[in-house]
């Protein structure tokens, strides 16, 4: 007993901080767990049987994946550029990249509608080649891309910053062009960060609700469906779809995240 008191006395800070931290962890998980575990499996199963639900989930995953691929093609080069160059206003550019995270999603949706709708030349240009954004899959993709690409850019940038620039320099002296140095040295070494940023981007794309709601209510993605059912029929009817969606998100996220961390030292 005295020994235990002493153990506690020597760790007052750690124990206090642990308990405070536990409050926030519980705040995050209790709602999610409570919702998942208090659901009737039969109802969940029936809900999954609805073609409408399945196609909404499928559409969500698919659109977010396209957004992530676009993010990889355009965001990774930007991340590398920012990791390797210093210039006046770099901090400003970095702040700008975070802005989609902090702009209210409903307002972001309106801004995107404005540019990609048919009143502005961008929307018109795409329309002339047969791509429509309003109430169409491309609209969902750009809404997801807008809100989720900062996660990939930031993660990839961190990854590239951790690659010692002298490794690239050595590669150059060994006969590699800048491209070869990038593909044979920098990219493999930053790969883990890029992958984990992509997972975050994909998951964040799946989670988007506000911007998609405004840009493309239909075809209906799963987060919008949750809201629609809540609005039209109330909490009990919305819950099964919400549970399924949360489960899909969490399972995918945890699985891919552990893949990204695999073999890495904690």
């Amino acid at each position, binding site marked *: 007993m005295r020994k235990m008191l002493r153990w506690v006395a020597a760790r007052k800070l750690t124990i206090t901080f642990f308990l405070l931290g536990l409050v926030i962890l519980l705040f995050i998980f209790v709602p999610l767990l409570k919702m998942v575990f208090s659901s009737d499996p039969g109802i969940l199963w029936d809900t999954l049987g609805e073609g409408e639900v399945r196609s909404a989930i499928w559409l969500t995953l698919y659109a977010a994946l396209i957004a992530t691929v676009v993010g990889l093609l355009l965001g990774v080069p930007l991340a590398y550029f920012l990791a390797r160059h210093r210039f006046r206003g770099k901090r400003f550019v970095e702040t700008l990249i975070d802005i989609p995270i902090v702009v209210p999603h409903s307002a972001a949706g309106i801004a995107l509608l404005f540019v990609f709708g048919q009143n502005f030349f961008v929307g018109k240009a795409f329309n002339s080649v047969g791509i429509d954004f309003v109430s169409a899959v491309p609209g969902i993709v750009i809404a997801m891309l807008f809100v989720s690409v900062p996660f990939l850019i930031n993660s990839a940038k961190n990854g590239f910053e951790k690659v*010692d620039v*002298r*490794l690239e*320099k*050595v*590669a*150059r*002296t*060994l*006969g*590699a*062009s800048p491209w*070869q140095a990038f593909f*044979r*040295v920098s990219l*493999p*070494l930053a790969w883990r960060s890029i992958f984990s940023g992509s997972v975050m981007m994909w998951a964040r794309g799946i989670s988007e609700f506000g911007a998609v709601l405004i840009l493309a209510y239909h075809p209906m993605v799963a987060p919008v469906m949750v809201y629609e059912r809540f609005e039209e029929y109330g909490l009990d009817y919305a819950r099964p779809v919400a549970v399924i969606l949360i489960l899909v998100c969490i399972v995918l996220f945890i699985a891919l995240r552990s893949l990204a961390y695999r073999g890495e030292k904690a």
Partner: protein
Amino acid sequence: MIEIKNLTVDLGTFSLQDINLKIEPGEYFIVLGPTGSGKTILLESIAGLYPIKSGEIWLNGTEVTKVEPEKRGIGFVYQDYALFPHLSVKGNILFGLKQMKRPKGELQSTVDWIAGLLGVSHLLERKPETLSGGERQKVALARALSISPQVLLLDEPLSALDPQAREDVQHELREIHRRLETTIIHVTHDFEEAIALGDRIAVLGEGHILQIGTPEQIFRQPSSEFVARFAMARNIFSGEVHDAEEGDSILSIGDLELAVVTELRGKLHASLRPEDILISKEAVISSARNSLRGTITRIDNRGSTLYLTVSTPLDFVCLVTRRSFEELGLKAGEEVYITFKASAIHVF
């Protein structure tokens, strides 16, 4: 042969200015300078990895100032090795060879030859993180040599190693240089390393080349106080040189008068190396020598050797081996005589 003409590099807080070097084929050339004197940047400029402000770099008669680093054929070894962590030792050595698109059989034989040369054949399948410091440095050397570079640039190759690995890699460097006759430029802040390896040494300080010469010249005839301090001369004086009888010269430092051999006259500096001073219990008189009586005021034990400070009252630092120290039975506070040749004093 490598020639650097009027090289100027901007380093932000200061700059390397008017660097002129001419390094002969097969030479082992040392650039010696304190930490933060821009040595790494100088090497990176030669390799084309750092933008130079003005000046020219010539390699075997061709100007390469604007040539991209991958086309210069210069091997580079960084201080902390910079091995590719995602590749095995073999992958590291193969990196440059693959770039050259050689036939596959040749690749294998080149790797085997280089790995054998540096004694890392048994490490080929290991990842860099599992190697010791000395092993990493040898792999980095093997990788740099794999492309048969015209020049090998070494950035403080020994300073991250502990004493035993340091001797080992130093020996390896001497062997490589002897066997491959590669031109080597090696930068360091360690004077002992410079003197052990260099054919010639350039001393870099405050952005300028202060002196270029053989180790012997830098060691014996420093051209400035900075170089003398860096070469650990330890006894550096300021005094006035004037004529003595019989055409000799006398250096006056306060009340003290020392016989020196020099044509120079006036207010000057002088350096005297601690190992050039003989300590004895009895006076040694000779016309060619300076002999002074003094007291041992400080003993600095270095293991095999000791540095003694003898106050005459001007302080002289003298080097003795432990054997002499013990045979003479020296102690702090004891009166001794110190003797050194007039020619051992270098006036500048």
